[in-house]
């Protein structure tokens, strides 16, 4: 069965690009527009990986990370941060919140698949 990825980004263009790329590689993709939306969807879908932007309205990616890690199903699944901030500060926060890893924007579809491939194959 195809693995399901929850892609969270408030930018429609990035989100759709990500979804398009992932679907092309055979993944199922659920899209969410911000942390709150993602949290709602995470509760109602079985997800194998979460890919989230950090800076988003309503609920940012860090808050999402923390809240997701409190859900039993999300304790162990990979959660990747997608962020333009390549600085260590944000990475440290992400790590503290329970992120599995990070991917710096801008990225190309190839790198996205490479990273995803490393965590869920």
């Amino acid at each position, binding site marked *: 069965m195809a693995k399901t990825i929850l892609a969270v980004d408030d930018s*429609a263009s990035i989100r759709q690009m990500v979804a*398009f790329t992932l679907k092309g590689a055979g993944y199922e993709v659920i899209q969410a527009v911000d942390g709150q939306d993602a949290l709602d969807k995470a509760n109602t879908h079985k997800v194998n990986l979460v890919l989230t932007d950090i800076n988003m*309205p*309503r609920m940012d990616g860090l808050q999402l990370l923390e809240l997701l890690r409190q859900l039993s199903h999300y304790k162990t699944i990979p959660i990747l941060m997608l962020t333009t901030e390549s600085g260590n500060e944000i*990475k440290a926060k992400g790590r503290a919140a329970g*992120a599995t890893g990070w991917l710096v924007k801008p990225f190309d579809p190839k790198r996205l698949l*490479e990273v995803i491939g*490393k965590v869920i194959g």
Partner: protein
Amino acid sequence: MSTDLEQFYEIFFEESSELLADMETCLLRLDVNSPDLEDLNAIFRAAHSIKGGAGTFGFTDMTEMTHMLETLLDKLRKGELEVRSEMVDAFLRAGDIIKGQLAGHRGEGQADPAAAAAVCEELKRLSDETQVSAKENLVSNAKSELMPIEQEVGEIAEMATSSPAEVASGLTYCIEFSSAGINSAAMENLFANLQQLGRLEKVVSTDEKEFCKFKLTTSKSEEDIWETLAFVVDPAKLKIELDLPVRSEINASEAQTLISNVTATASSVGEAESAAANISSEPGYGFFPGAPAAPKNLDGSDLTENSLQPKSIDNGKNDDQAVSNKSSKKASAAAPASEASSIRVSIEKVDQMINLVGELVITQAMLAQTASQFDPVVFEKLHSGMNQLERNTRDLQESVMSIRMMPISFVFSRYPRVVRDLAAKLNKRVELKTVGENTELDKGLIEKIADPLTHLVRNSLDHGIEIPEKRVAAGKSAQGTITLRAFHQGGSIIIEVSDDGAGLNRGKILAKAKERGLPVHDGMTDQEVWLLIFEAGFSTAETVTDVSGRGVGMDVVKRNIQGMGGRIDIESALGVGTRISIRLPLTLAILDGLSVAVGDQMFIVPLNYIVESLQPTAADIKTVSGHGRVVQVRGEYLPVIALHEIFNLHPNVTAVHEGILVILEAEGYKAALFVDDLIGQHQVVIKSLESNYRRVQGVSGATIMGDGKVALILDTAALVMASQQEAV
């Protein structure tokens, strides 16, 4: 796998345009003296989102500009710098530049790299200044203070490569362990190995036996240190933590989290072993060793990128926490989340739907006509079904039409900027008020109304509002007010532009009109006099400015508005102010019309031009030699437009008093349209004649009637104007 990113360009363009508009709205709303943190965050987020997209899609010019914006905004929202109005100006200019760049990428014009560079420079200067003033007490010279910013810029420029400075400096770890049971040779060996990792500094010397404490500054990760120590030291007695010299109490729990994370990594040391040795030069992503679901065979790059800088964590966390605490309540209250509750549909699809519903209305009307011939008692079910169908069809039509409706705020939102810029230019103080921004009208009209309205707003500001000294001298507040107001009235939307300025001067306008050779006389009503300002080439401005031009434009405003099926009214009082009202139909697609018959043909007369209909007596009709017929209506002599003559038709009646006169008013002139008969009032769907044919003189469009026949819609304004030319 190759992905054609171009397919996402359009989404990105639209999204960026919206973000820019949001950004501008927030900027204009921003009170420099007490900036709303939520606004600052929203502005930051907009710049940030655009940057992310621009980077992904390779629009580097936009990346640079948004990065500069983001840098300064980040300082503002973190409170490192105070908001000043010159920054808001710079942000607005930057927004304009990005708009230009966006248009350039869309293939709609050329971005100006020089202007972009200037704004970039300005933003940089502003964030640099901030840096200096915030750290004045450090008395370090400005040059060295500029370094971090340049570093940051460099980092963005080559985001894919890791910053060499970062690797060289590394992090400082505080390492503690018990040396009990370790022989001195092993200890020496251990220190030698640690020294290879970086700079080693002893904190607690050998005077305290069996306890070692030292600091290691290294570019290697915690895992490397663990790796080096774990062979010698009992892991249970080993403690490695980041050296966090300035941690405050607030951050204690945060520090604890970090420490526990680092400690947790001990279990994955073995797994990370192989990876730790090789440092990859291709970052851009990475994993946290030991984090849930992190891959087993980590690249070295992961660990390199993962080097943590304690100081920045500290500062960042502090400020950010403060920010989120303050703003969290507001954020949850506001939470518009427009995207989640709406979808994007192409306007063609909507129009197609509107057309189909239009067809449905016609079909329904045809069915109703047929059904009405059946006995309502015998065919009771048919009749009740038809009634139900009619109601449903009307409801459906209404809701479909509403899809095209948009709030006027789409237009109003651009004026705060216009007013702000212009007021500054003219040294006037003006407040812009908007009322009824949620009033809806057709998208097509929204697009068309923007330019005329801009002109009216500029005109009010330029010619209406006085300079502060004059206002004060006249006993008014130094700050003038321009009010934009929109509301529905019947089937129309009224948009008003009013100001509390000088008002129109009747004498001046009349004098000017005479000078221009316009046909005026002193007996004209005020309303007629005011409307003269919309005549071509008319301008009463004492000084010609580059703002509202040289009398060019107001006539264009009038033409545009009439072209949209609307009309203009002016009210004004000298010294008190002026109010210009634009009355527009709610939609371009539907028209309220009166159907009239001439011979076997039917025409639609738009209702908004009709004053009244009457059957004249023969005595009311006069023939003016060489100028055709006129009809006397309430003391006025109106030219008679005989539709059958204009359209070469065979009418059923040729004597005016046997037919019907429909009194029309357009552009301030009246005329009487002579037709055989009135048929009825309809709401008709406007169809273009030009899509398959050409423009026809005297006809503005066509529609399909209940019987499936095509009826032409009369171009009332053109007919009235033509009759005036004949009469003059």
